[in-house]
């Protein structure tokens, strides 16, 4: 069953055609890799999917609902969460608060209930806090719950960003270079965790990554971008044997 369907997506930056006729199908619970050389338009795809940029043309359908034109926060509430290439945590807030903000739209008490600290507020804050700690446990971050996010190491910050994104209970999770700056051991650990997340949260994952070992290790399908166009897409084995892809990556 398709969870995300992107057709004919395109955007211009000034005179530059950053993305052209982009298409993508993601089924429920799938793990897909988005690869391509620097400047191919990978992050632009993420920015279009999450409403940071508005597409010049094309359509994005999430779970039978057209989402292009919507603002970032609405899209997040409908079910796409993401991480950022250059970590964007709430640096001066605690690790726990970072996750709680990820859950923002899941809080049900009203503004007034919050101010007056009524029973519903207290109860929900408690439940959500436990939930947040449980999520942090995935990466063993729960011990740092009260630490400032900025005090975490680089790798831990990347992991916290993933936890924050998961906290919104997304249908689709976008990971922008999750292994950037990690050593090989950490990368292998991360691979396993991503796999685990995919299974236990029943969430579809689209990830941008330069580390081919990670991509080939966990992704079922791959889409290759070059100069803003889809060069190849489909099953992992078909794509890596695609002549065009080999040409783009290795030259002739």
């Amino acid at each position, binding site marked *: 069953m398709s969870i995300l369907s992107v057709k004919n997506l395109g955007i211009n930056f000034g005179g530059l055609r950053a993305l052209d006729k982009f298409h993508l199908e993601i089924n429920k619970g799938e793990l897909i890799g988005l690869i391509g050389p620097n400047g191919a338009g990978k992050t632009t795809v993420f920015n279009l999917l*999450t409403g*940071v940029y508005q597409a010049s043309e094309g359509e994005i359908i999430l779970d039978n609902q057209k989402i292009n034109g919507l*603002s*970032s*926060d*609405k899209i*997040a*509430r409908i079910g796409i*969460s*993401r991480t*950022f290439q250059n970590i*964007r*945590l*709430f*640096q*001066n*807030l605690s690790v726990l*608060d970072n996750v*709680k*903000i*990820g859950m*923002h*739209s899941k*809080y049900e*008490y009203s*503004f007034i209930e*919050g*101010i*007056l*600290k009524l029973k519903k*507020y*207290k109860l929900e*804050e*408690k439940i959500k806090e436990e939930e947040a700690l449980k999520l942090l446990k995935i990466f063993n971050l729960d011990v740092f719950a009260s630490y400032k996010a900025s005090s975490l190491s680089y790798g831990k910050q990347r992991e916290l960003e993933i936890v*924050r*994104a998961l*906290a*919104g209970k997304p249908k689709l999770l976008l990971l922008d270079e999750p292994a950037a700056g990690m050593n090989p051991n950490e990368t292998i650990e991360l691979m396993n965790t991503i796999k685990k997340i995919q299974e236990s949260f029943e969430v579809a994952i689209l990830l941008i990554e330069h580390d081919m070992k990670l991509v080939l290790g966990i992704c079922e399908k791959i889409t290759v971008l070059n100069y803003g166009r889809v060069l190849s897409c489909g099953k992992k084995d078909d794509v890596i044997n695609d002549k065009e892809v080999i040409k783009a990556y290795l030259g002739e």
Partner: protein
Amino acid sequence: MKLRFNNNFKYIIFTTLIFLFIQLLSSFNFLNRYYQGILTIMCINIILVVSLNIIAGFLGQLTLGHAGFMAIGAYFSAYITKLLSNTYFSFPIALFLGSLMAGIFGIAVALITLRLKGDYLAIITLAFAEVVRNILLNLDVVGGASGYVGIVKHTNFAYAYLIMFVVIILTISVIKSKSGRAILAIKEDEIAASASGVDVGNYKILAFVFSAFFAGLAGGLYAHYMGILEPKAFRLDKSVEILVMCVLGGMGNLKGSIIAAIILTLLPELLQGISSYRTLLYAVVLIVMMLAKNHLTLKGGVK
């Protein structure tokens, strides 16, 4: 959870004790009208600094127009008390309506500044406050340049203290709720906040409304304490004064800014003997404080 409740409880007892102590002192005539006046102004300043903290400290937006919201609350509430003349509830009603009016202007300012931040926001809020002041200067219904006189002096220390107390409690409650977290998240990173499902626009408006409403409340108290209003009381200097309290206390640090408000209310009174050097000293203190604060921050000593 339990801890938070205890803290609130302690806070309530603490503030009540202070209040009773001051009431006791004044009933035995240890505190004359002059000192009570300073204490009242102190409460008003604390309301102002707490309210500015919502925008500047928690939302992290630079504004230079807080005196504008205060002026709206002051003039409108004074107008209402005159309109209702001597009805029993005229003062609370006037205070509420004055604050409401300031809050409405808060929405307007928030709406037009949604996309702006940093210096641009500072400039536009400065311009807003100047427009308000200029219009008041030319509005004959409220006395224009010669001032709005004959406002009944309803404000006393007890009133100001009670309202200050409520404002502080409400502000803390907002910050401790999901709305407060959302506002803090926007300060940290707007794009990440909105990717986390936070409606950035709405929460900015919320912060402005709250802040403006409280500033209007402070204005209303001020109007009914002074008995006369002049547009020149709401110049840029006033906005800067509140901002300075906020910065000295540490942005987003309520306790600190309350202490800063207390000190900066007392300071001019203490310097009265050397009044010709007062502004000079104030200026030097400002610059030195900023330089010292930065020096300490760089050394990692104090944040």
